């Protein structure tokens, strides 16, 4: 196998953020993410994970530091997909219309036929094409989350930011969505940054788990997860898997104790 230099798609350099309210959310966060990788971000509540994602997406600006993108510079938003903790669907629009909204907002030249075709395709990826004419209220929480992921993928972004997308789902649905998300990633190889409170979820999904400290958030550990893809549910019973989870859990716990002292 030829060794290609791995391209860095996102270069976060010493990003700090203090809100106007005085809340110091992030303290010199530095993180390089290489193209096509899957990174999970864990940390205690309030450690600034959401804030970091919002800064990366350009929805918020950092107080200092810089964000280097190697994205389609023309239209950065085309190249970033964002999945919120809540499905955040427009209740007045059908699932298909919800999923098509990035195309309508972004690519104004696109004709209806093209939009329909693309929407159809994305809905099939996440397995909800049967619900395209349903309204969000008519779907279960898991299905709504699938729609939300589909929407983030419609512009075929290079970078997908996911902020605790499965936090509100039951255990079974969550495991199912984990696997489906991984399959999509293996097929499409976008770069994923996945925020979660669940260490087990982080280790199951990611190639790398980045641990953040309590507020103000800093990166306190960056751990490679050695398991090969495709990962199957069996992994969850693996000893090595449990050991890594326990290790991360300990680091997190001691960071929290340190902060409290």
């Amino acid at each position, binding site marked *: 196998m030829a060794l290609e230099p791995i391209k860095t798609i996102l270069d976060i350099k010493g990003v700090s953020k203090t809100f106007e309210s005085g809340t110091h959310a992030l303290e010199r966060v530095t993180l390089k993410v290489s193209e096509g990788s899957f990174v999970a971000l864990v940390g205690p509540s309030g450690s600034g994970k959401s804030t970091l994602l*919002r800064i990366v*997406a*350009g*929805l918020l600006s950092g107080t200092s530091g810089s964000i280097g993108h190697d994205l389609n510079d023309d*239209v950065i*938003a085309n190249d*970033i997909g*964002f999945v*919120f903790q*809540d499905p*955040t669907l*427009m*209740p*007045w*629009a059908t699932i298909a219309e919800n999923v098509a*909204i*990035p195309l*309508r*907002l*972004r690519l104004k030249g696109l004709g209806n036929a093209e939009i329909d075709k693309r929407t159809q395709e994305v809905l099939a990826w996440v397995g909800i094409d049967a619900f395209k004419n349903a*309204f*969000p*209220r008519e779907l279960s929480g898991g299905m709504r989350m699938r729609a939300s992921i589909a929407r983030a993928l419609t*512009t075929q972004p290079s970078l997908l930011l996911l902020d605790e997308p499965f936090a509100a789902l039951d255990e079974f649905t969550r495991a199912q969505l984990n696997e489906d998300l991984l399959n999509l990633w293996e097929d499409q190889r976008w770069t994923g940054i996945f925020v979660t409170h669940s260490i087990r979820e982080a280790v199951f999904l990611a190639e790398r788990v980045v641990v953040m400290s309590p507020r103000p958030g800093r990166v306190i550990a960056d751990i490679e997860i050695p398991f090969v893809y495709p990962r199957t549910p069996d992994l969850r019973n693996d000893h090595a898997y449990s050991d890594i989870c326990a290790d991360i859990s300990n680091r997190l716990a001691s960071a929290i104790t340190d902060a409290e002292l």
Partner: protein
Amino acid sequence: MKRLTMHLWPVVFGMALLAAWHGLVIFYALPEYILPGPVAIAQSLWIDGPDLLGSLIVTLQVTLAALVLAAFTGAGLAILLVQFRVLEKMLFPYAVFLQVTPIVTVAPFIIIWVDDVFFVLLILAWMAAVFPIISNTLLGLKSVDANLRDLFRLYGATRSQTLRRLLLPSALPYFLGGLRISGGLALIGTVVAEMVAGTSGQSSGLAARLLEASYRLELSRALACFVLLSVTGYGIYLVLNWVSHRLLRHWHESEMEEGH
């Protein structure tokens, strides 16, 4: 079956009330100029009905015109105010004045300044109806889901896209709530305006006819006017409810059918 009996209760109550009223009038042998019974009113409705219908149409025209005008100006103003917050600070207090000023006190001036009676009534009814639409729509425009806002920003939505695809649909349930309140207020405004404007004759509205009949102590006729006005008010309410249901039934909590 249970549904049917539920709908029957108001009817039963109404019947009981009418019977009691009828009994009272018979028992005390009340003359028409004090209190006519339901039968006399029904007779008056039957005989004067066709004549009063013309007046009802006059009243209804003003009411509906005022409501439509209030809907457009109210929603338009709310959209304008939300786009430019300075404007909101500047103008909203005056919108409140519009609401708290009793329109009877404004009527004499409008009558002096405006010649055409129709426009006098229209202006007064509009004043009575517009505020709930402004304030409700404004509230709706401000209650947009914060994440959806971020989503629109992320995809670089233009001002007009955000307005059309996000703000307006979010505000629709609130606007319709305002419209339902304003429907009743537009009728009240028209009625008050008619009474103050003091027109008479067949080409005048139903409230003016009511006043005219009561001056002549034709209470059956006056009450017939009253019944027609009440029924009209209720009709407006039902129509607006139906419109609201049609527009929101797929997605808004307030209009979801039970069992969903």
